[in-house]
């Protein structure tokens, strides 16, 4: 096009680049679904991979019957309780351990040993302890989320620059200010990383629990459907799980943008003198 203008790749406006990226992505995903639809029943057995159209029909059916909503609601509750509680206690424990050398010295080896246990292997125990209702799944979600948040926060606390703490204390910061205005913000990049990493694991925790023993929930629904080769229903369940994770990520992105505003703002601004 503009042979006399500047190089288009570096100077095209941002919206044009974004448009291009979206268009390519759209065609890629659309092409994938199209290929899936065509392949189903023609090149690959339909009961193995179902097809987008069958999945859509299955979705309408389970949605209208209320089955999907009920099961989604159960899984949602497990995550909605287990995730925030796990994240907050994980962050809090990581913070406390980071502040208290004595606590860290006593409990660190224990926690590291526990970390070595594949935590999903604890799921059957939670069923034994807490029954087949939602609380055993809340427990699994909690434990997965707790550890990720704990470890990231604790790792951040170990990196904490003591000079920030000294400065704040010399300037007269009380405990509260020291925690919330200095230490937690300083560690926030680590905390956010743990928080975001734990999102998919919260869903894994809930589903794992439901796979093992449950009478409701998306994991139960997926396992039941797969048991009778209703592949389309399995995909409906998986799609809902994906949507849950995507929505949680969106919320986490909003939180991240707010909490880490001080990191992201630096790129766009230039400086003089």
């Amino acid at each position: 096009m503009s042979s006399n203008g500047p190089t288009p790749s570096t100077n095209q406006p941002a919206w044009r680049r974004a448009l291009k990226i979206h268009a390519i992505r759209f065609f890629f995903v659309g092409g994938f679904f199209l290929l899936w639809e065509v392949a189903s029943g023609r090149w690959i057995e339909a009961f193995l991979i179902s097809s987008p159209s069958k999945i859509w029909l299955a979705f309408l059916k389970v949605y209208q019957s209320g089955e999907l909503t009920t099961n989604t609601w159960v899984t949602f509750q497990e995550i909605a309780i287990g995730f925030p509680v796990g994240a907050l206690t994980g962050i809090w424990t990581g913070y406390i351990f980071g502040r208290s050398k004595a606590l860290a010295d006593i409990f660190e080896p224990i926690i590291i040993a526990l970390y070595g246990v594949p935590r999903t292997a604890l799921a059957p125990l939670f069923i034994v302890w807490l029954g087949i209702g939602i609380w055993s799944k809340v427990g699994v979600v909690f434990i997965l989320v707790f550890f990720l948040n704990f470890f990231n926060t604790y790792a951040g606390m170990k990196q904490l620059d003591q000079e920030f703490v000294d400065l704040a204390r010399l300037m007269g910061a009380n405990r509260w200010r020291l925690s919330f205005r200095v230490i937690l913000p300083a560690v926030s990049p680590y905390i956010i990383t743990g928080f975001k990493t734990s999102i998919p694991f919260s869903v894994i925790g809930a589903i794992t629990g439901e796979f093992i023993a449950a009478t409701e929930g998306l994991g139960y629904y997926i396992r039941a459907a797969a048991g009778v080769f209703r592949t389309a229903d399995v995909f409906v369940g998986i799609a809902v799980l994906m949507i849950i994770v995507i929505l949680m990520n969106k919320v986490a992105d909003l939180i991240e943008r707010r909490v880490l505003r001080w990191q992201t703002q630096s790129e766009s601004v230039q400086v003089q003198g």
Partner: protein
Amino acid sequence: MSNSPDNIVIQVDNVSKTFQTADTDRVGALENISLDIRQGEFVTVVGPSGCGKSTLIKLIAGLVSLSGGRIICQGEEVRGLNTKVGYVPQESKLFPWLTVEQNVAFGLDSKGYSKSERDQRVQHFIQLAGLAGFEKRYPSQLSGGMAKRASIVRALAYDPTVILMDEPFGPLDAQTRMILQDELLKIWEHKRQTIIFVTHDLVEAVALADRVVVMTHRPGKIRDVITVPMTRPRNIFEIHRQPGFDEAHAKLWNIFRHELNLKNGASAAVGN
């Protein structure tokens, strides 16, 4: 203000510091240091790296505990954190998650200034640091020199009795350094806070100071205290031409040359 005898604000009295490192190792950082600092004095501290300059600063701030002796700040013995001091570390160490304004206000918020006094002081010190218009910026958006100025006024803003500066201009390039020295002196002429300023640059030490404290290595001791007779205000950019500079600088250099010779002799002896 001047209610303590002879206007002494800081009295370092026969202070020693030994660090207990791993196992039974002990590192003697400071040995029998005594030093009186008067109200409004600008004191610089020079000495070879590792002689305990930072340790001295941290002892005065109460950030590390004494092994012997005592430090008295405004008539009160320092035990634990000394919140009467302001501290400017080598790197600017502005809180990167707070804006320039919030950084400068940090000490004011912590020490319970009223809202109006707080805002007024913050604005005043931001002006003084030449940072007007940058109030809402984050430290990552500032140049090194700007960050340094912000770091200095952050320590000045809440009016500490003494300001401790630990090689604050160390990592900066020569020009920026000189400009900041000039600005620091101007701010100081204005307020006349007591400043203890650590540096390893002999020219800087003389140019800024009323008195230069010279420390020696192993053990960390005060070798000498030189009074700089130059008048104020001083012109940092032509400091060499000011009467008194050469004399003080030569004195200082003599001490250091002596130290270097000693060291060479010592290492030669070890070599044999």
